[in-house]
Every structure is written in C-alpha cells, then in structure tokens.
C-alpha cells in the first residue's frame, strides 16, 4: 500500500522512495498528529524540567491518565454510535457519592459497594438510552436534561454532603502499586484492553460501530440499532461508574464536585486520538495517547509554574488546533491520493 510499489515503472518516483513511503505511511497514520504533539512536549519537558522525570511526578501522571482514560472511554462508547453523553459528569458525581454513602453510612463491604456503584452507573446509562430510543427526543437534549436531573437529585438527596470516612482498605486501593505501577493505572489499562477487544473483535462491538457509521444501513443489514444505542449508553454509564470509583479511591473521599471537570477531556482525549465525533470509528489506543497528552500538558504547566487557570484556555486552543491539524492531514492524504 506504499507509494513505491504502486508505480514500479517510474524511476524518478523510485528516487528517495524509501523516505517518501515512510512519510506517506506516517501521514496516513491516524495517530500522527497526537504522537508528534506528545513527542514535542515530552522532549521539551525532559530537557528543561528535571522534576518531570522524577518517580513522584511520573506516578502522579499515571494516576491522572488512569482516571481520564476511563472517563474518555465512557464517552467513546457513546461516540461509537454517533451520540454524546453530556450527563457523564453528573453520573460520575452521583455514583461517587452513592458508593461513598454505601461504604460510610450503610457500612457495606467495599467490593460490594463498588459493584453496586458500577451497576448503578449501568442503570443510569440504560435510562438515558431508553429515553433516547423510545421517545426520539434529540439525544443531546436528553443527556443535557438528565445531567441536570441527576445532579439535582443527587444534591437534593445528599444535601451537599461529602463522605470522608471511607474504609482504609478501599482508600489503600487508590495508593497501591504493582511493581511501581499504580494499581489504578493497571485497572485502567485492563479496562482499555477489554474495550479494545469489544470494538475490534466482538460482533456486538462491530454492530455498535456499524450503527454509528450509518444507522440506516445498519438497520437494513439486520442490526437492532435501537438496542445498540441503549447498549452504548449502558456501557458508558458503567465506565463512568468505574471512573468515579477510581477517583473516589484516589482522593480518599466522595464529594459532589467529583467529575465536574470531566466533560471537555472526555471529548478531547478521544478526538485527539482519532475517534470520530460522528460515530463509526473508535481508537482506544489513540484515546489513551490523547489522555496522556492532556495530562502532560497540565503537568507541564504546573512544573513551569503557570497558573492552573490558564490550563483551560490551553486545553480549548489545543483541542481546536489538533482538530484543524488532523483535518489538514486528512485532506492532504485525500488530495495526494495516498
């Protein structure tokens, strides 16, 4: 599929065909833009800021990526069918508080509380998917409305309380390491592997992608598209639950503000990594590279002593720039018929 073999007779083309074909292969690579950005920023930080390499800092990065990655995957599941989940933040806050409440006030064993929390996440996702499919109301509006409803219900029931006396064994999970790698990062990567297998290898995953790529065509091919949409939202809710539990373990407390900053990264990380907003195309590895890029930029700003307030500006500009660059890359590929 490289340029060289396609024009075997053209000797002028052959000259420097190795570097050219490498370039072409690179340009066609979906993760080209995000990889270059990552390499540049990592290079700068490695050279200029010694603290970047410290074990402490790398561990902090690992924790951040672990949570952001799962949050982004929660969005990816819905993006795969071409929809958005704006209720992700509210789901995270609600599940986090619920898990904290079950452990602290009900005294449930933490594995049970975790399982119930994640199951509840699936339930909220199922409600959202069912409303979208059954009523036909614009999915954007449904998730916006449910975000408010979930958040309001959570505040109304908890009265703004937070839970700080969590079981020590549970909090220890958030600090544990396996061979120096944070346990949360290991869990996050296992989740990522499962989601990859789902989309790459399983029939259900392929049907999700087909639904996102072209709902009509998918329906004509005998895929129960409505069921796929509900499934995507259930997966999204479950992953939001996993992310919320991870964050509670990491912070050692459950607060209503949990997840309030998830929304933009949940879109930015997948989009930076080549996942399409319009559905039908999902790149899990790219999503993690995107999450890594976001985490390293936030980390770099802290190391350079820049006010954290500017992070949001940079995040917004970066997202737009990345999208524009990737558009340029795609049109370059199309124009030159690579």
């Amino acid at each position: 599929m490289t340029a060289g073999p396609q024009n075997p007779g053209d000797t002028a083309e052959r000259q420097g065909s190795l570097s050219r074909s490498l370039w072409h292969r690179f340009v066609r690579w979906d993760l080209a833009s995000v990889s270059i950005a990552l390499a540049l920023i990592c290079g700068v930080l490695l050279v200029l800021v010694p603290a970047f390499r410290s074990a402490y800092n790398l561990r902090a990065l690992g924790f951040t990526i672990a949570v952001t990655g799962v949050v982004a995957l929660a969005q990816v599941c819905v993006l795969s069918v071409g929809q958005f989940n704006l209720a992700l933040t509210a789901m995270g806050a609600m599940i986090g508080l619920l898990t904290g409440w079950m452990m602290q006030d009900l005294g449930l064993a933490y594995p049970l509380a975790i399982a119930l929390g994640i199951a509840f996440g699936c339930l909220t996702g199922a409600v959202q998917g069912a409303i979208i499919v059954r009523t036909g109301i614009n999915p954007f509006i449904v998730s916006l409305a449910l975000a408010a409803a979930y958040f309001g219900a959570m505040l109304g029931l908890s009265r703004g309380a937070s839970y700080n006396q969590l079981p020590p064994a549970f909090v220890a999970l958030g600090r544990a390491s396996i061979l120096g790698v944070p346990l949360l990062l290991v869990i996050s990567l296992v989740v990522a592997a499962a989601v990859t297998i789902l989309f790459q290898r399983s029939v259900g995953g392929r049907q999700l992608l087909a639904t996102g790529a072209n709902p009509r065509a998918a329906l004509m091919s005998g895929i129960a598209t409505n069921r796929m949409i509900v499934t995507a939202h259930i997966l999204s809710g479950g992953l939001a639950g996993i992310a919320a539990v991870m964050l509670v373990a990491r912070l050692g407390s459950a607060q209503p503000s949990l997840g309030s900053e998830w929304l933009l990264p949940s879109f930015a990380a997948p989009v930076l990594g080549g996942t399409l907003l319009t559905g039908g195309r999902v790149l899990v590895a790219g999503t993690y590279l995107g999450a890594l890029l976001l985490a390293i930029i936030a980390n770099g700003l802290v190391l350079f002593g820049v006010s954290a307030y500017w992070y949001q500006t940079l995040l917004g500009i970066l997202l737009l720039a990345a999208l524009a660059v990737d558009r340029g890359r795609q049109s370059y590929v199309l124009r030159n018929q690579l």
Partner: protein
Amino acid sequence: MSLPRPLLPDAAVPEAPVRRRFTGGPSGAAIAVVVLAVILAVAAPKFVSLDNFQVIAYSVANLAVVAFAQMAVLAAGGMDLSVGAIGGLSAVVVGGLMEAFKVPPALAIVAGLTVGGLGGALNGFLVVRTGLSAFIVTLATASAFTGLNLGLTSGQPFYYLPDSFKAIGSWTLAGIPGLLLVMLAVGAALWFVFSRVGLGRQILAVGANPRAAELGGVPVNRSRIVVHALAGFLAAFAGIILTARLGVAQPTIGNDWLLSSFAAPIIGGTLLSGGYLSVPGVIAGALLLTLVANGLIQLNIDPYWTQLFSGLMILAAGGIDRLRALNLQRVERAERFALANDPAARRKDA
C-alpha cells in the same frame, strides 16, 4: 406566502402558515406560566408581592437575554455551548476596565459587547472554516474563554464599580425594573430582525435547510458567522446587565447558564432542528423556568432540587419539540401526497 418581502425563492422559505399552526409557538409555555402562577398565588402567600415580582422580573430579564443568544443559533441549525463563558468573560472585561483602568462605564460596556461579538464571530468563523460541528467548536472555545477569564482575574471579582454603572441594574420605571424593559426592547429588536429583515430571514432559511438556502442564493457561511456573532453579543449583553445588577463583576458569571439557555427556547417552541424561532416563546420559557425556581423557594422546598425540576422540564420540552417535528412531517407528507394526486393542485402550482 404572507411574507412582506419575498427575498428568497419559495423552496428556501418554510411555509409560514403551516409552521406556525403546528409548531405552536409560545402558546403552550404561556398556558403553563399562567397555570403555575395561579397555583403559586394560591399556595404561597408571599408569592404575590411587589418584592417577589421584582425578583422574578430581574431574573427573567437576564435569563431571557441569555436564551435569546441560544435561540438565534438554534434557529440557524447550530448551537453555542460558550454563551456562559462569553458572558463571564465580557463581565470581567467590563469590570476590570472600570476598576483597574478607570475607563468610563459607557466605553467599558462597548468594549465588553465588542469582546462578546468577536468571541461569537470567532465561533462562527471556526465552524465555517474548519467544517467541524458547532458542538465541538463551542465546547473548545468555551474552555478557552473561561480559562482566559480566570487567567486574567485569577478568579478574583471586581468589587469597586462606579455608581453610574450600578445604576443601570437598579433603575425602575413606575415600579417596573428597567432591565425588564431593556430585555423586552432587545426581544422586540430580535423579533423585527428575524421576521422583517432580509438577514434574519436568511439565517432562518439556513437553519431550515442549508442546501436549499445555498441554492436559493443565501450566503450560508456569512449567515452562520453573523448568527454566532449575534449570540456572542447577546451573551455579553446578558453578562453585563447581570454585573450591573449584582454590582460586582464575578468571574463565575455564566457558569450555570448552559441548561437554561437551551431550556427556555425549547420550552418556547424554537425548533432544535433549526428554521423556526419564537421570541415571545423564549420569554415565556424564561418566565416558566424562573417561576419554578421561585416557587420552590416560596414553598420552602430545598433549592437543591431546582436542577432536578429544570432537567425534567427540559426533557418534557424536548418531548414536545419532538411531537411538533413529527406533526410537521406528517402535514408536509400529506400536502405532498395531495399535490401529487390532485391534478388541479398541480396545475395551480405550475
């Protein structure tokens, strides 16, 4: 066609009478407002009082202007998630100019409105030039504007605003809050633009059917940029009048605008799919949202629940929007069917 100046070929202009009949406009929201007001008047003794009416009026004035911004973009078939961010940024720009640089209020307000308009125009430019969805563009710019706001202010409000500026927020005319009148004037101007001015009609045509509009000679890209700039301007306007009323330029202004900016237009009949808007509907929607929040307080219900009710209301409004769209489709299909099967109608059409 009952349009005063048919600027566009018929294909680009939605059949006004059909749309009006089946999209209902503000009537549903207005009925809900009346019912709720009567219930509250009976159930909550303090609801009917001049003080409470003024509180409601100030709240509606601000909310309606925010919702006008979203309404305009929705009518053009887009959306703007950055209304709150632009409102907050403009508020601190105005506050900062007056407090730190001693700029006269009038000039500071002009600067704030310019910032809002430019921010909106940037949104529109990015949507048009990159071909990305308005959703992701405005999600990103919202983050950028909020960061700019917090970076410039370090999260600190501007407290020392000139009295002449604060007076904008507190003047009344025969007991009616001035800001309510200002909001009504803005609404009237928008109604005029969207029903009588070529540019407004073009924006609606783009929202109804961008392809048809383009074939009909409407400058689609320009209309999109203009409507985003208009939304930015209105968001800035809302941020500035809120600052004047509060007497403090807080960086957090606009943080909680997103939900209500969508809720009020949708409750008031503006179509999510674009092409139709109703200015009185937006005002009725804003009034309904405000009455619910106010009613919860009057009935001594925990304000924590407000968001739950807002969420359920917007869901209900989304359902009504869906029913309207289905109804509209059915009518259009029936009319097409009648046209195709009725030789007389076909001859008349030709």
